[in-house]
């Protein structure tokens, strides 16, 4: 059922379109009302039935009326390069979103929404306050039309290098089931377990009794007491067994979580737009203009690095970290990719990166000494504390940390460095787990040099590069232990080159 009218412009692109939410919005109102009723089930079964029925009727009509009002009052239209939404019954609220400010369009389809063929659309701008507009729910065709209109508008911008017209989508990378399993095995187990728990929770939270947590806590407490009474060896064995079970379950859940979250992951490039589509139960699609990417991070966690795999993360200026981002897979541009493949994929995000090369430079070797010195001071304190508690040769044990930390710091130093080319700054760090940041110079907002009193004695400085939106790439590129003169020159070069470029989102 089409709820929007369009008038084609010169090149077949809709220049004006208007619409309202899909009529199924009402059905979702009913659905939400029903879910609310489930919460009242215990009251109905054990408590006062009349109260339960009354309250249920009240809540149900409430959610029905809200949904109805939303459906009948919500309008949106695309006019003069702006997306205009209107809502509210008594107080009409109008919101104008200039299309060139749109950072990302996210489409989300839960299981029920997929069955009914409708989509929830969220539109993000650089405001960083979460979605600027939420259209829930639209028909699938409507949402696609909206996305294309925004994309077509972006293509017509004077500074955009892309010619107007619908570009042909080109698949950049698809993740196979085997890769998803691998992604699950090498991912953070706990997080993925949370994905599953969260999904189950959505269904279960209305059904659990109120004192569920109390009961669980009481049960755990009694078990611990029981084990303690059985003697230490048994307790240890049970704990080990428990850890093993948690590990196995964790791996299982993280594989399942990875498949549920990222099933059918496809990264497509359509002109200037990077599109991601994934999800087994809830299907998610997001559309992100690549010129909005502020920082790109190539992340190699320990397990993945050993297997030669990495993940790509990207930040746009609109991103603000939210608790559910990890569970929704928003934080990764590409969850898993061979490290060797990354270099070929980079031009997809940064088209002018291809011709640029720069040699990696290292920071001052004093970095190793300083990092080791910190550990040395700590371990000496440890020795003193130990000695006071129990004098003896064992108290010297913390000193072993010093050679160990020296070895680690040496390795870390070897993999720490930066490379500045004409339009990009790259930074890499880490030994066991590694991260490489790529920052387009045109996206640099400010550069900062800091010197602690120790830095000044050694003639060193730390460099901080500030960009917009650092939600997923780990809080801004930074580099310590640079020789002062080099740091100043680098900061000056970066700032001056940035000043000579134009920042667009």
């Amino acid at each position, binding site marked *: 059922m089409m709820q929007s009218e369009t008038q084609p412009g010169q090149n077949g692109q809709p220049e004006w379109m208007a619409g309202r939410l899909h009529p199924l919005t009402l059905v979702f109102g009913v659905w939400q009302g029903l879910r609310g009723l489930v919460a009242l089930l215990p009251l109905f079964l054990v408590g006062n039935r009349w109260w339960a029925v009354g309250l249920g009727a009240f809540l149900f009509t409430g959610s029905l009326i809200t949904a109805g009002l939303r459906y009948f009052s919500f309008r949106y239209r695309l006019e003069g390069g702006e997306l205009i939404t209107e809502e509210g019954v008594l107080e009409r609220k109008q919101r104008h979103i200039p299309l060139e400010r749109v950072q990302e369009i996210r489409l989300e389809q839960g299981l029920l929404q997929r069955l009914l063929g409708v989509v929830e659309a969220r539109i993000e701008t650089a405001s960083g306050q979460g979605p600027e507009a939420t259209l829930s729910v639209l028909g699938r065709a409507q949402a696609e039309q909206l996305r294309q209109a925004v994309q077509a508008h972006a293509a017509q911008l004077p500074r955009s290098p892309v010619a107007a017209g619908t570009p042909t989508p080109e698949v950049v990378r698809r993740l196979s089931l085997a890769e998803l399993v691998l992604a699950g095995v090498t991912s953070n187990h706990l997080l993925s377990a949370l994905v599953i728990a969260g999904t189950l929770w959505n269904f279960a939270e209305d059904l659990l009794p109120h004192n569920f947590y109390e009961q669980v806590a009481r049960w755990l407490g009694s078990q611990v007491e029981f084990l303690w009474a059985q003697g230490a060896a048994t307790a240890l064995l049970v704990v080990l067994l428990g850890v093993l079970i948690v590990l196995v379950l964790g791996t299982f859940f993280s594989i399942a979580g990875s498949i549920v979250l990222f099933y059918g992951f496809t990264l497509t490039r359509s002109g200037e737009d990077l599109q991601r589509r994934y999800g087994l139960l809830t299907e998610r699609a997001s559309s992100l203009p690549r010129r909005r990417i502020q920082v790109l991070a190539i992340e190699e966690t320990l397990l993945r690095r050993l297997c030669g795999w990495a993940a790509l993360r990207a930040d746009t200026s609109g991103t603000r970290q939210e608790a559910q981002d990890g569970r929704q897979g928003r934080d990764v541009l590409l969850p898993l990719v061979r490290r060797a493949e990354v270099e070929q994929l980079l031009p997809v995000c940064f088209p002018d990166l291809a011709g640029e090369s720069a040699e990696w430079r290292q920071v001052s070797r004093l970095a190793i000494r300083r990092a080791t010195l910190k550990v040395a001071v700590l371990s000496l304190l440890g020795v003193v504390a130990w000695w006071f508690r129990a004098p003896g040769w064992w108290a010297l044990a913390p000193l072993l940390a010093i050679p160990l930390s020296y070895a680690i710091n040496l390795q870390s130093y070897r993999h720490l460095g930066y490379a500045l080319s004409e339009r990009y700054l790259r930074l890499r760090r880490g030994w066991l787990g590694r991260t490489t940041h790529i920052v387009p110079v045109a996206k640099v*907002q*400010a550069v900062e040099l800091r*010197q602690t009193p120790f830095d000044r004695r050694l003639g060193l400085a730390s460099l901080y590069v500030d960009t*917009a939106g650092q939600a997923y790439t780990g809080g801004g590129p930074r580099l310590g232990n640079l020789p002062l003169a080099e740091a100043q020159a680098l900061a000056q070069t*970066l700032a001056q080159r940035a*000043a000579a470029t134009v920042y667009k*989102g």
Partner: protein
Amino acid sequence: MLFSYLMPRHKHSQVRVVPQKSRCKHTGTRKLMLKDQPESAITEQPIFQPLDPRVMNLWRLTDGLALAVLLLLLLAGVGIGWWFLPELGLWLVAAWGLLAVGSVVLVLWYPLRAYRAWGFRVTERVLETRSGVWFQRTQLLPLTRLQHVDLERGPLERMFGLASLVLHTAGTHAASLTIPGLEAEYAVRLRDWLVQIGGDDAV
């Protein structure tokens, strides 16, 4: 001037000497006069410009007030301590006195160091500020990244005829940069000039 004996002696040649006696014809207030420059034109400078020296007294006042409140609270603590542990009373008073003397010295001396450490300049459309006595910091802001500029004048700043400029970018962890202690009228001109250099192509 109250603490004129603490005025900077300008041992660094790159810090510009600010004439002490240049007063505005109309208001009689002292002004930050950039030497060799007509008042209407601010230009790019390879040399770091100092803040208005009056900012030292502003800092002395604000720091002094904060420390005074702290010292009064501590004094109350000392009183209570004396009540409960009379044998320690004199020691507590002595410690408090030492703290008080230290605070007075700090309030008189630290703003001078902070003032000397402060400087800003604009080269090649980049605003560079440096500050910090023990922990030093240089911030570089490409002026084309300016989102907006706030001119702030608190009641105390107004008393001293000063203003602060707060420059905002779209960045995350260092999204704003503050230049305190500018002569009020100069701050307005500096703001207009910075915005003009930045151009209107920021978001």
